[in-house]
């Protein structure tokens, strides 16, 4: 028992590599760095055929990452607390539809957007209350949420697109550019930093890890795990709404079906980023790298003009490999 460290060295030879691999999100960082180097090398070698570094492509990337990023940050903090939220894709659509239709009715977007976030938080709290009060698996409760709120979108607004036409100040705040950088991308960086501080540097984060890692121990030591999980549910719902706002501000309209499948992509990003499905493990930087990796691969496949189904197959493979890798690390007790 005392020499648990010995078997570690069997799979890795280089000590620096070993060190990075055992860091939280170290493995994903290596994969991401390798992919970036390959892409940049490819773009420099074939600037005309592989336009990875072209300003248009970088802008597309910067615009695409924040939406999934917001969803994954919220879903991730909840996963670390030991619960799931499958309803975030539907909540994302619902809150965006609500906001867009309120603005269409003459309300300022600066009021409609916080109302959308409030709705997201309320749905998160509802998911949490049902899950925790009745001791149900959140997987089932939020699967119900996924279908219910998807239906609610159609009930509220029908299967039609809603135009989103906010005041210019709102548009530039979420879809403009600052020093050549997309505003949405600045938002996601701010969120990543805030979530990092919350999860890794704040008391609350410590309680989230404890709640997900060993609920019995957390309760025994006096942590209110019910409250921690409820807050995590609220954050997941709220961030789904934020994702909806960012996406809607960029596109200028909401499609009633646009959120379908995003909840799975968000969870996929988390798993790729090193979060354990059983809770208690993971990092914000891992989640963000997971999101960036998914979008980089999507982007590369698009640039290579690969058919869409390759994308799904690629991401699927990545999820399974990441999950297997994480499981291996967990069993060994590292990370």
């Amino acid at each position: 028992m005392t020499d648990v460290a010995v078997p570690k060295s069997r799979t890795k030879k280089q000590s620096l590599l070993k060190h990075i691999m055992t860091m939280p999100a170290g493995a994903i960082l290596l994969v991401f760095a390798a992919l970036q180097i390959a892409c940049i090398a490819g773009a420099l070698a074939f600037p005309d055929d592989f336009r990875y570094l072209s300003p248009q492509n970088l802008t597309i990337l910067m615009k695409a990452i924040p939406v999934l990023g917001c969803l994954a940050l919220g879903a991730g903090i909840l996963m670390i607390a030991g619960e799931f939220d499958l309803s975030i894709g539907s909540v994302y659509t619902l809150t965006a539809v609500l906001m867009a239709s309120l603005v269409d009715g003459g309300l300022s977007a600066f009021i409609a957007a916080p109302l959308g976030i409030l709705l997201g938080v309320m749905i998160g709290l509802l998911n949490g209350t049902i899950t925790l009060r009745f001791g149900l698996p959140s997987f089932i409760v939020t699967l119900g949420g996924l279908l219910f709120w998807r239906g609610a979108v159609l009930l509220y607004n029908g299967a039609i697109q809603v135009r989103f036409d906010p005041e210019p100040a709102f548009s530039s705040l979420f879809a403009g550019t600052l020093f050549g950088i997309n505003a949405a991308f600045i938002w996601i960086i701010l969120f990543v930093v805030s979530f990092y501080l919350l999860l890794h540097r704040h008391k609350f984060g410590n309680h989230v890890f404890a709640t997900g890692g060993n609920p019995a121990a957390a309760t025994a030591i006096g942590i209110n795990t019910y409250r921690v999980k409820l807050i995590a549910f609220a954050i997941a719902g709220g961030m789904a709404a934020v994702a909806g706002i960012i996406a809607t501000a960029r596109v200028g309209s909401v499609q009633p079906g646009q959120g379908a499948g995003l909840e799975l992509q968000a969870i996929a990003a988390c798993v790729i980023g090193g979060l354990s499905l059983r809770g208690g493990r993971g990092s914000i930087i891992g989640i963000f790298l997971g999101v960036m990796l998914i979008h980089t691969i999507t982007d590369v496949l698009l640039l290579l003009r690969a058919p869409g189904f390759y994308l799904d197959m690629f991401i699927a493979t990545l999820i399974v490999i990441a999950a297997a890798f994480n499981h291996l690390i967990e069993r060994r007790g590292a990370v």
Partner: protein
Amino acid sequence: MMFAPHLLELHNISKTFGTLTALRDLSFHIGPSEVVGLLGDNGAGKSTTVNLISGIHKPTSGHLSVDGRETLFTCRSDSADAGIETIYQNTALVDSLSITRNIFMGRERTNAFGFLKQAEMRDIAMEVLEKAVHISGIDSPDKLVGDLSGGQKQAVAIARAVFFKRRVLLLDEPTSALSVRETEALLAQVLKLKAEGVSSVLVTHNLYHAYQVCDRFVIMSHGTKVFDVNKADTSISQLTEYVVLT
């Protein structure tokens, strides 16, 4: 000593769960700087007693007193406030967090905004591990608890209790998952803490481990106390007899 109030005393405690009577008219005390062995076979009511002292269960009748003052523990923090720390078989630690974070879990050092004072906590953890608890193999408070052995985990739990100035350690089957060497280290630790004024209750059915360190033995059977004896007045064969035959 005769007139000094007991650190912790149980007065005529009974506890029923539905139709099951887990504890019946149980009374015993724990004195200052004393190691008490709470012995008994499986089902004697030891675990219920532990849960009661740590505030998880409330007695159906009877009461507790701390320093001679009558009290009632309604939750775990009441017990912690009275200076009692329970160290469970599967110690209440989170494997995926570092030793430092485990020691301060739920009692984090933070600034006014709730952000962790990581350097301060790390330094304290380092000091506690070096000075208060000597268990080999722990060289850094940044190590994840999941990487530690059973004995090392208990050492971390004890370090946590020591740092938060507990006066009574309640060790629930502390040696059941330990190697021989770790057991010796743990028992030595209990004696060291006793010298520093920390009392311990060893809840166990391993009479030999209890006999090594305890000053007094409380033997339970069928939910009540059947024997309460100082080490000087008994022998291991007499203890065995009581545990087995009652």
